[in-house]
C-alpha cells in the first residue's frame, strides 16, 4: 500500500547518529519529515565505544550545536565522564570528550524525536527506493508499505549488505543482534550509483564484576567538565525541553557524579596468542575484502605491523550507570571466540573476565562520496541525499554532522533554495564534506585536526562564532539565541580592543595584550587581568585570551583564506561541458567531468588539476557570464 497521498518533504532512512540529526534538522525547519528505522529500540545506538568527542570530533560536536543540532546537548545530559584532551598542545587542538551512558543517550534522543513537531517516527526496513524520471520520489519497506517523499536522506551505516566476521564464523547484519539491509544496494546500483566495500571492527564487552580493577590504573574525569553545547547562548527552554515536558525525566545535571575509566596493557602472552592464531583471523585469512581504518587497527594488525612494541594500551570504558558492561578499547579483533577468550585472560586484571559479547569485524557497502555534490545530494539521482557511514566515514560525530547538513539541504532542495555549504575555512564540518566529495576515501574516513589547513581558527569555543552566518541564513537556531551570539561576539571584540589599549600593569612592559601573549605563548609571568574582565562568562574570557595570544597566527591564517576566497566564490554551472573548454588539457577535462566540481576552489583541489587549468576555467566562466549578460541586455522587439 501507499501510506501517504501527500508526500513528506523529507524521508530519512535510518535513525543512527546521522539519521537523527537529519530528521531533527529537517523537521525543525518546518518540513514534514518521516524517520524510518529498522528498530525503534536502537535509535542513536553507539555501536562501538560509548564515548562522544575527542580529537577534532569534539570540535565537530560543538559545531553541530552551533548549527542547532542535538548531539552536544544529548551528550552533556547523558555523559558520565568528561575530559578535555590535549591541554598541553595549545588551545586550538584542545578537544572535549565524554563517556556516555549508552542507554540514557539513546532514550533521550528517542524522546526528543518523539516530541519533535513535524516529525513522524516509524519502524520498518527500507528495501528499495522509488525513482521517477531521474529523481527519488519515495521508499518501499519490508512491510510492503510504500512512503512518498519529495526528498530522501539515506543513512544506512554498516547495515548495507552488512556481514559480520568472528574468525571463520559469518553472520549477516549491520551490528551484532541486528539485521542487514540486503536489498537496498540493488536500488542504488540500478540508479547507477557505484558501491564499494569497507570494513570496521569492534572489541569484546566484559562483565564489570569479573574484572580486577585493582590491577589497573584509574582515569578520572576532569574536576570542571568541558561541555559540548553552548550553554551560555542556548535558550533555557530548548536546553532541557525533554526533561521539562517529557513524561519522564531523562538525563542529569551535566558533569555530575562522574565515573572512571581504567587502563591496562597487553602482555607478551597476548602477543603470542595472537601470533599463533593469526591464520584463524578473518582479516588475515583473506575472508574480509573490505579496507579497514589505519587509525583503528585490530590487535592482529598491531602485533604484526609494530612487532617491536612490547605492549599495547587497553582502556576499559563503562557502558552506563545502570549496567555492569565494559567496553575494551584497543582490543578490536576478528579472531575466533575461543582465541578472544584466551587473549582477554592474558591481560592483567582480566584473568577471570567474563565476555558478554565477542569482538567482531563488519564489512558493509558504501557509496564513494565523490558521487555527491557538496550539499550531499547525489549527482546521479536528484533529491537523494547521503549521510554517515554510507559516505565512507567512521565515527558518530562525523555521521551526525553530515546528517545535519543533508537534512537541511534536503529541505532547501524541496523549497528550491540554494544549499548550505560550509567552507573548509569555517569548520571541521566544511573540511570533512569537502574532503569526501573532492578526494573520496579508501578507508573509513575519520576526522583529524591535521586534516584542516586552518586548524588554529578552529578552537572548539569559537564554533558558534564561526558558523553564526550559516545558522542565521538558514534559520537553524532561534532568534533569541542569535541575539545572544551577537552580543557575545561584540563583547569579545570589545575586550580584544580593550586589551590592546590597556597597559600591562604590575611592572610589565607594553599593553595588556602583550603581557597575555607573553604568558600564553612564551611562558612569561602571569598577566594581571582586570576585575571587570574576570567577572565575564568563562566562554567569553577564554575566547578573548585565545584571540589575543594567537593574534599573529590567526591573522596569517585569515590572510591565506582571503587569498583563496576568490576561487571559492566562482561557481561552476552543473551543465558545463569540460570537453568543450578550449585550452584545457584532455586529462584535466576528463577528471573535471567525472567530479563535476561545484566551484573553482573545489576544482583546484582535485588531484591532477593544475593552476593553469583553473586559470583557463576562470577565463571561460567569465566569458560565459559576460555572454549571458549581453544576451540578457539585448532589447526585445
Amino acid at each position: 500500500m501507499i501510506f501517504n497521498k501527500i508526500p513528506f518533504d523529507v524521508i530519512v532512512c535510518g535513525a543512527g547518529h546521522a539519521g537523527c540529526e537529519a530528521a531533527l534538522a529537517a523537521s525543525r525547519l518546518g518540513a514534514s519529515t518521516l524517520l524510518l528505522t529498522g528498530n525503534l529500540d536502537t535509535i542513536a545506538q553507539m555501536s562501538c565505544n560509548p564515548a562522544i568527542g575527542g580529537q577534532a570530533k569534539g570540535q565537530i560536536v560543538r559545531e553541530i550545536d552551533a548549527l542547532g543540532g542535538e548531539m552536544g546537548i544529548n551528550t552533556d545530559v547523558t555523559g558520565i565522564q568528561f575530559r578535555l584532551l590535549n591541554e598541553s598542545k595549545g588551545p586550538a587542538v584542545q578537544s572535549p570528550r565524554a563517556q556516555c551512558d549508552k542507554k540514557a543517550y539513546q532514550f533521550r534522543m528517542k524522546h526528543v524525536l518523539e516530541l519533535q513537531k513535524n516529525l513522524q517516527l516509524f519502524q520498518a526496513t527500507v528495501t528499495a527506493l522509488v525513482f521517477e524520471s531521474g529523481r527519488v520520489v519515495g521508499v518501499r519497506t519490508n512491510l510492503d508499505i510504500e512512503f512518498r517523499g519529495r526528498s530522501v536522506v539515506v543513512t544506512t551505516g554498516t547495515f548495507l549488505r552488512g556481514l559480520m566476521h568472528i574468525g571463520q564464523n559469518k553472520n549477516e547484519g549491520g551490528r551484532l543482534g541486528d539485521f542487514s539491509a540486503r536489498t537496498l544496494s540493488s536500488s542504488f546500483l540500478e540508479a547507477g550509483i557505484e558501491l564499494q566495500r569497507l570494513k570496521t571492527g569492534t572489541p569484546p564487552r566484559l562483565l564489570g564484576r569479573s574484572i580486577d580493577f585493582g590491577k589497573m590504573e584509574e582515569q578520572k574525569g576532569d574536576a570542571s567538565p568541558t561541555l559540548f553545547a553552548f550553554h551560555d547562548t542556548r535558550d533555557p527552554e530548548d536546553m532541557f525541553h525533554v526533561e521539562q515536558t517529557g513524561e519522564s525525566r531523562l538525563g542529569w545535571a551535566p558533569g555530575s557524579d562522574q565515573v572512571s575509566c581504567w587502563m591496562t596493557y597487553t602482555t607478551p602472552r597476548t602477543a603470542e596468542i595472537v601470533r599463533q592464531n593469526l591464520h584463524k583471523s578473518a582479516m588475515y585469512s583473506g575472508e574480509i575484502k573490505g579496507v579497514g581504518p589505519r587509525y583503528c587497527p585490530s590487535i592482529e594488525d598491531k602485533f604484526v605491523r609494530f612487532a617491536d612494541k612490547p605492549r599495547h594500551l587497553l582502556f576499559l570504558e563503562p557502558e552506563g550507570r545502570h549496567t555492569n558492561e565494559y567496553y575494551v578499547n584497543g582490543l578490536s579483533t576478528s579472531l575466533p571466540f575461543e582465541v578472544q577468550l584466551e587473549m582477554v585472560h592474558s591481560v592483567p586484571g582480566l584473568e577471570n573476565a567474563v565476555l558478554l559479547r565477542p569482538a567482531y569485524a563488519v564489512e558493509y557497502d558504501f557509496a564513494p562520496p565523490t558521487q555527491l555534490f557538496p550539499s550531499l545530494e547525489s549527482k546521479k539521482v536528484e533529491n537523494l541525499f547521503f549521510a554517515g557511514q554510507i559516505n565512507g566515514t567512521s565515527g558518530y560525530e562525523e555521521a551526525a554532522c553530515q546528517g545535519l547538513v543533508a537534512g537541511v539541504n534536503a529541505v532547501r532542495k524541496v523549497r528550491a533554495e540554494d544549499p548550505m555549504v560550509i567552507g573548509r575555512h569555517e569548520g571541521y564540518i566544511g573540511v570533512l564534506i569537502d574532503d569526501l566529495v573532492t578526494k573520496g576515501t579508501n578507508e573509513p574516513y575519520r576526522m583529524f585536526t591535521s586534516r584542516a589547513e586552518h586548524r588554529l581558527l578552529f578552537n572548539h569555543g569559537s564554533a558558534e562564532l564561526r558558523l553564526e552566518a550559516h545558522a542565521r541564513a538558514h534559520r537553524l537556531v532561534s532568534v533569541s539565541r542569535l541575539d545572544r551570539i551577537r552580543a557575545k561576539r561584540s563583547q569579545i571584540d570589545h575586550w580584544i580592543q580593550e586589551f590592546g589599549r590597556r597597559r600591562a600593569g604590575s611592572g610589565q612592559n607594553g599593553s595588556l595584550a602583550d603581557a597575555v601573549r607573553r604568558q600564553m605563548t612564551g611562558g612569561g609571568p602571569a598577566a594581571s587581568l582586570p576585575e571587570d574582565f574576570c567577572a565575564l562568562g568563562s566562554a567569553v574570557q577564554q575566547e578573548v585570551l585565545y584571540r589575543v595570544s594567537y593574534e599573529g597566527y590567526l591573522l596569517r591564517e585569515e590572510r591565506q583564506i582571503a587569498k583563496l576566497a576568490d576561487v571559492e566564490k566562482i561557481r561552476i554551472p552543473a551543465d558545463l561541458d569540460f570537453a568543450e573548454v578550449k585550452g584545457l588539457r584532455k586529462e584535466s577535462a576528463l577528471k573535471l567531468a567525472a567530479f563535476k566540481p561545484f566551484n573553482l576552489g573545489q576544482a583546484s583541489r582535485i588531484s591532477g588539476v593544475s593552476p593553469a587549468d583553473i586559470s583557463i576555467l576562470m577565463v571561460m566562466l567569465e566569458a560565459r557570464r559576460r555572454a549571458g549578460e549581453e544576451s540578457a541586455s539585448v532589447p526585445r522587439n
Partner: protein
Amino acid sequence: MSVLNDTIAALSTPVGTSGLAVVRASGPQCRELFGAVLGGEPKPRLATHGDYRDRSGQVIDDVVGLLFAGPKSYTGEDTLEISCHGNPFIAQKILEDLFARGCRAAEPGEFSRRAFLNGRMDLAQAEAVADLIHARSERAMAAANQQLRGSLGRHLATLTDELLDVLARVEAYIDFPDEDLPPEDRTVVQDALSRLTFGTERLLATEHYGELLREGIKTVILGEPNAGKSSLLNRLVGAERALVSPEPGTTRDYIEERIAIGPHSIRLIDTAGLNPSPAPLERLGMQKTVERASLADLFLLVLDATRPVPPLPDAIGACMTAGNTIVVVNKSDLAQPEFGGAQLPSPTVVRISALNGVGFERLRDEIAARAEAFRVDQGDEVIAINARHADALGRARAALMAARQKLEERGAAELLASDLRDALAAFGEIGGRIDNERMLDRLFATFCIGK
C-alpha cells in the same frame, strides 16, 4: 573590479642578454612598490629615471620606472613596469627583490588572464587568452620537469621526506593524545630541524652559484693609476683589449672581458685607477669603481712593486676579504718590495710582470681555486636554482627557523606544526603540492595508533 587581491611579478622580456629587460608587476601593491624601490610619488604614465634600491638599500641598477594606474592599464589593475639593463642577473635581482617585498611569481599567462577578467579584453579575445595560458603552462611545466628530474628534484625530495617525518611526529602527538605513544623526544625533532635548515640553506646557496654559472664570476681589477691593471687584463685575455698607455688614468670608464680558466667563466672588469686626489674627469670613473666593487665576487688588487702600498677607499676596503681577494704585485721584474707593516686585505700575494708574463700561471691557479670555492659542496652534482625557487626556499627556511625557535621556547605544539606546514607548503611550490595524505601515511606507518 579586481578579481584578485595579490600583486604578481614576472620578467616580461625574454631571458638572456639584451639591450633592455622589463620586469612587470600588477596588483594593488604597485604604487607602494614604486615609492619603495625608486623613491617618491609615482606620476602615472610618466617615465621616472632613478636608482633601483633593494630592501637593504643597495642600488641594483639605474632603471626607468613606469606606473600605469588601474583601470587604464594592460591588466586593468595598477601596473608597474621597470626597465633595467638587459642583463639577466640584474633582472633577476629586481625580481627577487619584488618577491621579498610580497609579490608573488606570476603564473603562466596570468597578466593576460587578469586583463580579461578585469574587462580589458573583449569576449573574442577570451579564447586567445586561454590558448596563451595553455601554451605558456606547457612550456613552464616542461622546464620545471626538466629541473625536477635533475639533482634539485632529488635534494628537494630528500628534504620533503624528512620534513614529512618531523611533521608526522608532531601531528601524532597532537591528534592522538590518548594513545600510548613513546615519550616525546624533542631532540629528535631538534636534530631533524637543524638538518632541514642546513639542507635548505645549501640549496639556497646554489642560487648564487647558479648566477655564477650563467653570468661568470665577476672579478674586479683594482689598483692605483698606472699600476698595470689594463696590462694585467690584456695579458689574461691575450689581446690588446684595454687601451694601454704609460699615462696614468687612461681607463676612465670600465672595461669588461670574459675569459675561461679551467671550467670557470670569469668576467674580468677593469676599473679606473684608485686615485686619492683625482682630477674632475676621473672622479666619475672612481665613483663607478666603487659601485662595481660592491657587486664583485672576486678582487684582484694590483700593486706597483716600485711604489708603496696605497690606502684603499673605505667603501672598497669593506668589500674585500682574505677569501675574495688576491694581491697581485706587478712590475716585480723591476723591484722586490717588502711591504713591511703595510696592511694588505689578503695574505695571498702573487708576484707577476704584466710586461713579460712572469707569474701568470700561478695567478690563474689562484683564480681557479677561488672560483672553485664558490661552488657549493654538492658532490659531483651541479644545482642552480632560479629566483622563484629561491623565493620559496627562503620562505621555507624562515618557517623552519621559526619552528626551531618554538621548540626552544617550548611553544605550543600546534604552533610548531603551523610553521612546519608552512615550510612544507613552500617546498610544495617547487616540486608540486604535497597532499596531507602523505603526512598521514607517514604517521600511521611510524606510530601504532588506535585503541
